[in-house]
């Protein structure tokens, strides 16, 4: 059948209703509340897929595709299930599969037996059970248009993100790629909030990301980069949606402006673009000449990113010692005050290690040294050493 977005969501909610009963049943039968947690994960994940993937790509949905999607959803849920403590769900994969199979069959029965009985025109209305309307009546975009937009957004995301992907591949085993190619100061401040972990400020997006990373025990670097990429992809999808209203070709190129921004800024821009798309705001088209100019500017910006990656960006790569020092600083119970004669080292330790920089040696609890100074430092005073990089305790010197 052909689902509309509203129809897809409503049908999914009806099927999830059946799955909820199954989850209760399993939880009572086996005295394991983890089945209810699994249900919540399953509901959140499948609704997200409906909103961000299926509604863009799938027009007519044959039954074989429904089965294939169910398999894909199970694999995704299995991946989530294997997340570590404290997000871990204490179910073995085979237990999760047993529940998923029963829940899926219950949902399938709801879709193919119950819904046609309760709402005979359910299929004709694209899966819609309850008709409600807000805003102006809109004609759904043709599936070809949606697929084209999705494909363009994905390809553009990959092209624009290429300096970051290559940077990650170039890092090798002796360096770590931070992803900071432009707006270094802005990114370093964001990283500071991110590395605060459980104590990250809730008022900043990076602080929330830091708390998410701390809860899942993920690397803050990875969380930051994934948020960055998602922000970019969402903004591009939003711009494609905006193009449905007025079709100016230069719009996706505007995403290049976003790529250097930290996730907090790109997230705000993405949200603004999406709202503009939903409100059906028309963006003025420009002539071929201005379009060419926009393309040239975008290309220059992209090449500038490559130049930054290979030559100019001072914080793009961290040495193994700098990364380990940052990790170690972030592990400390109390926030250390640090000083270093090397500004770069002090900046890295402050941002990635959740430490407070000091203007003077006397005001610092730790002095960071590198090279011969580290080798010569008294062992009793060295609280961190990794190769030729040291943190020396001022109290022990």
């Amino acid at each position, binding site marked *: 059948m052909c689902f509309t977005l509203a129809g897809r969501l409503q049908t999914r909610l009806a099927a999830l209703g059946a799955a909820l009963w199954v989850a209760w049943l399993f939880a009572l039968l086996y005295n394991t509340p983890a089945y209810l947690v699994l249900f919540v994960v399953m509901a959140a994940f499948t609704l997200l897929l409906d909103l961000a993937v299926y509604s863009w790509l799938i027009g007519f949905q044959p039954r074989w595709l429904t089965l294939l999607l169910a398999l894909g959803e199970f694999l995704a849920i299995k991946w989530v299930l294997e997340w570590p403590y404290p997000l871990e769900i204490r179910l073995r994969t085979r237990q999760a599969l047993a529940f998923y199979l029963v829940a899926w069959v219950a949902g399938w029965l709801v879709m193919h037996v119950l819904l046609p009985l309760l709402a005979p025109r359910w299929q004709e209305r694209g899966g819609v059970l309850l008709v409600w309307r807000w805003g102006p009546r809109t004609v759904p975009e043709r599936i070809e248009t949606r697929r084209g937009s999705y494909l363009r957004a994905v390809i553009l995301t990959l092209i624009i993100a290429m300096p970051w992907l290559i940077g990650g591949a170039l890092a090798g085993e002796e360096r770590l790629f931070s992803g900071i190619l432009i707006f270094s100061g802005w990114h370093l401040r964001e990283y500071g909030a991110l590395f605060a972990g459980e104590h990250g400020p809730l008022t900043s997006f990076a602080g929330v990301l830091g708390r998410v990373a701390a809860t899942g025990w993920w690397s803050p670097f990875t969380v930051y980069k994934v948020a960055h990429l998602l922000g970019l992809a969402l903004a591009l999808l939003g711009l494609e949606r905006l193009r449905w209203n007025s079709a100016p070709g230069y719009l996706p190129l505007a995403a290049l402006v976003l790529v250097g921004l930290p996730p907090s800024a790109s997230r705000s821009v993405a949200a603004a673009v999406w709202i503009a798309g939903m409100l059906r705001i028309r963006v003025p088209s420009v002539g071929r000449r201005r379009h060419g100019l926009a393309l040239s500017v975008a290309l220059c910006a992209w090449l500038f990113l490559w130049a930054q990656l290979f030559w100019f960006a001072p914080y793009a790569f961290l040495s193994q010692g700098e990364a380990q020092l940052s990790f170690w600083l972030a592990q400390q119970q109390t926030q250390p005050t640090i000083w270093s004669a090397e500004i770069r080292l002090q900046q890295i330790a402050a941002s990635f290690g959740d430490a407070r920089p000091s203007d003077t040696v006397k005001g610092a609890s730790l002095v960071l040294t590198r090279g011969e100074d580290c080798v010569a430092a008294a062992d009793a005073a060295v609280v961190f050493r990794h*190769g030729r990089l040291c943190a020396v305790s001022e109290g022990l010197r």
Partner: protein
Amino acid sequence: MSTRRWWCVLVLLLAGCAAEARALTPAATAVVDGSGRYQSVLRLDRDGRPHLVFAAGGDRASLRYRTPDGATETVVAFDERARTEFDFAFVFDADERPVVAYEQTGLHLARRTAIGWRHELIDAGERRGYFPALAIAADGVVHVSYFDLANNDLRYATDAGGRWRLEIIDASGRPGFHLAAGFSQITLACQVAPFCQAGRPLIVYLAYRYKPYDGELRAASQSDTGWRIEPIDTARGTGGFPSLGVGQNGVPWVSFYRASSWDFAYGELRVARRTRGGWQKETIDSGTYVGRYQALAMASNDRPLILYAGEHEAATLAALCEGWRLAPLAVASARGWGALAVGEGDTVWATLTSPAAQTVLLELADIGKEEPCL
């Protein structure tokens, strides 16, 4: 059934019989005065005789040293009566004297001298000294790798220069809850340019963010500027209880366990070796708890041997010939830690845990000569 089909069945049966490996019978066995619930470390002296350090639990919790003639002496006695975890490593120094690194509220080193065991404190940090591994260079310099369980960090200590110098190699773990998981392993014999250099430490360890099987198996090699850290195996549930050996050609081999998430009891015995192109991995065996306890040692011709608990806890020996050959040992089941050492002439010594939870020392004489490929 036609005659041709009968021939086919006969050929298949014969092929099956030929593929079934003959069980290996130990030349000698001895029960050791220790609990098999805990790890034991086996080393051979220059004459190929076995020396053993093992843990004795219960009321007289201690680490004990067993000489080749069967005499035992206490290395260190622990105060805690309810001690259930023993973390230690054992090697010989250049003068063939036993040296033991162990955890007792910090990392300690014990050297056997003419007047008894001499102890020194290496790292006094709280919850440090777990899963130690020990290597001693020809010039007598000691290298120790160990874990800081408070922060889930890998640390390293060396007495080069006459005093202990401590380093943090990998601080990417997160502080918090943990389960005792695996061991770090260290060697000075690795020589695979540009990854590692003979005389410098190569450490293989299970790095976990928060708890075991929530991380990856990694290798850290010392360079001029610091440490090069690279993943060996990043598969989910990988890296349990790594065991490291280095051949005469300098190539390091690691055997380790990978737990399945499908069923927590199901696992795989995996092995990896470092070549110039990177880490080459393969799975040798799989099944219920297969490979959870395993030990690797290098035989002559740079051929690795692995002793492990196979399906139904059957003690099994795996040898690399033209592919891996597996042979069961004709001993009672192996329910816990094992150790393996190969001496001159490929004489194999092993320890296993008996069904009665005792440590059993086995001599598998001249496996290399008699059964070059098991």
